[in-house]
């Protein structure tokens, strides 16, 4: 390519690059920098405060902070249950869609995608009210069947949030898996049928291996989202602050450290830690799921 043309091409990307530096690189650099300092109160805290270099102290504190590590563990454990359940339902629905006529499939696909169109905050508001013993229909419904549900009880709050996330997410994940299924050459299924394979067998041995890539991808996206979960617990906290504490998830802790405790340095260190955890989790998941593929 001609030299001048190269630079003209690069020029198209310059505004974005500048913005990227200002809105991504600079903040990350600033966060890392901030994480290395701490505020030192002089005297009895009346004489003002100074910033002093703290090295890795904030990180050490973060790694031994039982509230923070506990919230990470809580979210990871939750992810281990909710994500497989959600992806399994999405996969089954995608397989069902793939097995009906395309006319029927397109109608159901739109219906199943309705929750995905709803903003996360609104979805949480809707389910909070469905769960509510005052206005929601689920509590009286449970009574009919002899259940005395309390969706905000400590043991129920994660299942309640999990149901909300599953409801919100299956449509999107289903569409991705379904379009991967559509990409499988149809001849393959016919060949399997000629060999006498049942539909169930074809789904298990031909279709599912083919959508493995889509499953890995949706799993990865879900893990990234889950480690950063904030909206749903924040809204649940509006209703039931006794159960959903302000240190329920990692981002809630970071937010509180920054804005309620005014401890930006520690919050910065925790967000860097969270980024590292996220990177490691994604890497491990990717390694673990793609290893068996080759």
């Amino acid at each position, binding site marked *: 390519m001609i030299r001048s043309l190269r630079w003209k091409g690069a020029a198209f990307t310059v*505004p974005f690059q500048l913005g990227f530096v200002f809105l991504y690189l600079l903040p990350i650099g600033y966060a890392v920098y*901030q994480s290395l300092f701490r505020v030192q109160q002089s005297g009895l805290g009346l004489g003002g405060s100074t910033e002093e270099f703290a090295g890795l102290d904030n990180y050490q504190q973060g790694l031994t902070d039982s509230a923070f590590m506990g919230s990470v563990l809580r979210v990871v454990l939750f992810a281990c249950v909710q994500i497989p359940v959600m992806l399994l339902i999405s996969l089954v629905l995608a397989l069902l869609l793939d097995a009906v006529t395309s006319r029927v499939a397109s109608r*159901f696909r739109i219906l199943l995608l309705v929750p995905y169109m*709803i903003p996360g*905050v609104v979805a949480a508001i809707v389910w909070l*009210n469905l769960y509510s013993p005052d206005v929601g229909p689920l509590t009286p419904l449970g009574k009919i069947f002899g259940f005395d549900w309390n969706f905000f009880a400590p043991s129920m709050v994660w299942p309640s949030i999990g149901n909300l996330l599953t*409801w919100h997410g299956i449509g999107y994940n289903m569409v991705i898996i379904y379009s991967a299924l559509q990409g499988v050459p149809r001849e393959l299924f016919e060949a399997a049928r000629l060999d006498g394979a049942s539909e169930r067998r074809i789904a298990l041995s031909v279709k599912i291996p083919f959508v493995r890539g*889509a499953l890995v991808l949706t799993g990865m996206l879900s893990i990234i989202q889950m480690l950063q979960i904030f909206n749903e617990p924040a809204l649940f906290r509006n209703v039931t602050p006794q159960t959903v504490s302000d240190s329920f998830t990692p981002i809630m802790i970071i937010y509180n450290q920054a804005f309620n405790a005014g401890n930006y340095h520690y919050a910065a260190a925790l967000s860097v830690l969270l980024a590292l955890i996220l990177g490691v989790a994604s890497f491990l998941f990717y390694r673990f799921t793609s290893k068996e593929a080759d």
Partner: protein
Amino acid sequence: MTLTEDRAKSSQVRRLSAPDPVSRTRGSQRFLLVGLSLASVYSLFPVWWLIVAATKDRTGLYQSNGLWFSGWHLWDNLRQLFTYEDGIFLRWTANSFLYAGVGSLGGTLLALATGYGLARFDFPGRNVVFAAVVGSFLIPIALLTLPLYLLFSDIGLVDTPWAMLIPCLINPFSVYLAKVYTEATIPFELLEAARIDGAGELRIFFSIVLRMMTTGGATVFLLAFVNTWNAFFLPLTVLRGEENWTLNLGLYNWSGKRLESGVDLTSLVLTGALLSIVPMAIMMVAMRRYWRSGVTMGALK
């Protein structure tokens, strides 16, 4: 069976090779439809409940069956919603439209230019830029938002619409999509022909590339709009005063009022929640063709 007919129509190979599969009986079709219907009921009943709840007054909301109407009070609820605290809800709606509309438009234009530059020019550092774009998908929102808040507060942007609009301009996922779309729709030969005809690079971009990228651009815009409309953590962090809030932030605040000050705004929250879905629904339906390809393309490529 309609199923095999349908399939057979679409492929020669199949027509030659497909004996009617034994397992595809009427019964198994019914089983499939029952499964899909149950899933649809699960998907739709919360939305149905929200629609019904928005038509009820307080007594109806607390005392009648949640899944069916009792009295028609939608207009009263809307009047209350729009007049509460001097019509602050309208203000939030306008803000959401401003941030999502203007922010996404600017972000889309920037993303298309960047995607085009990355896909069709071979300049030094191109791979570094692209790696940064993809790598940034993994950065947690807190790591960006907190320092951004500090930087914005240093230059006096916190609590102004700029604090929402500026971050919308830089959207790595949009750039990624724009690159994928450019690769699929803009042939090198076309660009060369235009150059031979003497068109300048800017002219080529604005009058040829942008025009050919209408579909891709619409998808990028739609997804960015939805993202901004749904945003919560960023506005919560950078917007303090009520008058700049988004719909989401306003609804979040109202839903917490009951606990905080004993004011029960459930009825307003629910009517407001329903209204905040309407623009999403209209956009999604109007642009169904675009966003479906966008969702899957962005995810699979």
